[in-house]
């Protein structure tokens, strides 16, 4: 029997297996849809309507302008409260994120530059430090806007001063989805790619059908490539669907080229599928394979890929570890392709990283399978 005939037979067998058992289709198409929708809408750092208690001891005309400035901020929902006790209780219970207290001598001190600065006290529930920091920024910003307006009328600010003008490149409105959805696609692809092979092949080992396949005239390499080939087509389909969802549902731009996207996805899928095969071959047990796949893929893809957390801010030893997480290369490429374009200085080195990971995963699988048969 020629190699071509054997491959033909093997591929037919895989296609039959895929169409008969809904698991593969579910993993490749249902799981990405669910994960993209839930994560895309659920992981959102665009704070809006953060509730802030506002306690004002002496409400006067001038301070009312301050409340209006707070109300005008799209990020804040000021809630007037009668006294600091009520406000403190609300901060403790989590009903509001923080409280702004303006004492009764505030306006008086503001009016006389000899008694500047007039203090406004902001207490924040910092059990969520990231949100606390963002809230502090928005409250200062709103107060700054108010003061700038007042300054025009009453010449409040000292002469001079420095303006910091900032421009956000690639994502001018700083939409959190624009930054996070490419990362979610990388996470979804890691999971689907690895689970496709890890779970399904682990079951074949568990039931012993893998051994019977190995006893056939087909060589190990042929077997591996037939399996990888079929799941590869499924995986590319699920990648295409994810990208279309990112553009259609989450409104991301796509500024790069399809060719670069295809190259990155293909290399990444070979890695993920290879890793899944590797895990299932070692584990040969569905429970263990699923657990290892989960630890080896989803967690690093989420935590160490730069999707949620900036790699540059991690401890040095952990930064080095991230080079062993291929999702890191994919996240970098996807963020650039979606938001910036074909920046080869970013895309090429990361493609190299993906190629190395793919070679390693497939190579390791071939090695391990050979050894397990002895």
């Amino acid at each position, binding site marked *: 029997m020629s190699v071509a005939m054997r491959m033909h037979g093997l591929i037919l067998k895989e296609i039959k297996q895929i169409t008969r058992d809904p698991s593969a289709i579910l*993993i490749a198409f249902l*799981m990405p849809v669910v994960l993209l929708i*839930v994560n895309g*809408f*659920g*992981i959102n*750092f665009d*704070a809006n309507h*953060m509730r802030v208690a506002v306690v004002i001891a002496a409400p006067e005309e001038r301070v009312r302008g301050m409340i209006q400035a707070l109300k005008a901020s799209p990020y804040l929902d000021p809630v007037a409260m009668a006294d600091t006790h009520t406000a403190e209780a609300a*901060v*403790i219970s*989590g009903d509001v994120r923080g409280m702004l207290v303006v004492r009764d001598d505030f306006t008086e001190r503001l009016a006389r530059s000899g008694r500047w*600065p*007039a*203090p*406004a006290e*902001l207490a*924040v529930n*910092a*059990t969520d*430090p*990231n949100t*606390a*920091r963002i809230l502090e*920024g928005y409250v200062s910003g709103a*107060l700054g806007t108010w003061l700038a307006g007042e300054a025009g009328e009453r010449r409040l600010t000292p002469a*001079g*001063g*420095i*303006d*910091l003008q*900032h421009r*956000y*490149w*690639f*994502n001018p409105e*700083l939409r*959190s989805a624009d*930054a996070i959805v490419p990362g979610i696609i990388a996470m979804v692809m890691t999971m689907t790619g690895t689970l496709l092979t890890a*779970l399904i092949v682990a079951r074949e080992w568990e039931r012993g059908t893998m051994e019977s396949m190995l006893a056939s005239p087909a060589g190990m390499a042929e077997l591996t490539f037939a399996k990888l080939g079929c799941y590869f087509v499924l995986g590319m389909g699920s990648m295409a669907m994810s990208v279309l969802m990112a553009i259609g549902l989450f409104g991301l731009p796509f500024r790069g080229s399809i060719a670069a996207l295809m190259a990155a996805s293909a290399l990444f899928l070979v890695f993920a599928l290879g890793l899944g095969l590797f895990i299932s071959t070692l584990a040969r047990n569905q*429970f*263990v394979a*699923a*657990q*290892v796949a989960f*630890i080896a893929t989803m*967690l690093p893809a989420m935590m160490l890929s*730069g999707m*949620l*957390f*900036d790699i*540059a*801010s*991690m401890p040095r030893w*952990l930064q080095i570890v991230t080079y062993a997480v291929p999702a890191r290369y994919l996240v970098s490429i996807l*963020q650039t392709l979606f*938001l*910036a374009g074909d*920046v080869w200085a*970013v895309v090429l080195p990361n493609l190299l990283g993906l190629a190395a990971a793919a070679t390693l995963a497939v190579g390791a699988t071939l090695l391990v399978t050979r050894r397990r048969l002895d």
Partner: protein
Amino acid sequence: MLRRILALLAKELAGLWKDRKTRFVILIPPLVQVVLFAYAATYDVKDVALGIWNEDAGAQGAELVRRFAGSPAFQAAAAPQSPAQAATAIDAKQVAAVLHVGQNFSADVLAGRHAQVQLLIDARRSNTALMVQGYATAIVAAYAADISPNHLVPVAVLTRDWFNPNLESQWFILPGLVSVLSMMMAMLVSALSLARERELGTFEQLLVTPLRPVEILVGKALPGMIVGWIDANIVIAAALLWFRVPFLGDMALLQGMLTVYMLAGVAIGLVISSIARTQQQAMLGVFVIASPMVVLSGYAAPVENMPAIVAFIGQADPIRWMLIITRGLFLQDLPTSLVLANAWPLVVIGSVAFGVAWLAVRRAVS
């Protein structure tokens, strides 16, 4: 009845423990996750690579640049000399932001005119961009205050960060991990238990034993609870002893809440288990359910930021309520009344899920 349940429990635990690989995946993941999450999960930024494009020859410009380069948030990484060079450095991710000080900066400051500086920020990472902008604003504001005639600004916002004064990310992540990790393990162990019996055909054998459906359910639920409880306490121990996260609340109350919480988790696992025909389906079920549960709980990003409908659906998620309890008990000694107010949803979720699982087992019996 108790003896029968204990016998089933012993059988289940032996099943989990006797396999070396299974034992490994029950104990190692918590440890790996504690390390990963605690060290990786920081939303704060430090040592951000900054390009400095200084066209100003004066002392004031040099001082501002020095303040940026000396700040722990930034690290000077490039010195572009033109818009094109600045653009290239950002495109290639060589720097995360470029500070541009124009030619007239020092002259404007000296003359008491409004001086301007620009900051170009790579917003491919929106959260980082926001932090970078915040730090830059603070540096510029501090400098502006220092050079203003009598060092005075009209209004000072005195900020106090309650419960986490240094805004430590680990204080936020680890108490959350107590809830997330134990839920995942409890769900996984209980989801696989019934499904395994079904797949291997031993479920029928179980049904012909004197065990009643309720007893089978309890015997199947306990191992998941025990595993989840152990994993939760591994994380608690790591948080307290290694990462030195403060614990201000009542530990006995937390352990009690964990028990209620584990009941809810195991019940959800059993529902998945009673629907699934094979272990594989059960595992997929857990994967598909667990990821949304973690995201909707507010573990990664605040619930308030979610669309209203998503936040509403999230109320059925036990992790959401337990997060409030664990974070509250660790950092702020949340009053018992507030703890209980967040505990009753757990009871409701657990009871409903147990009811569904019980019906499923009953149906299998008849």
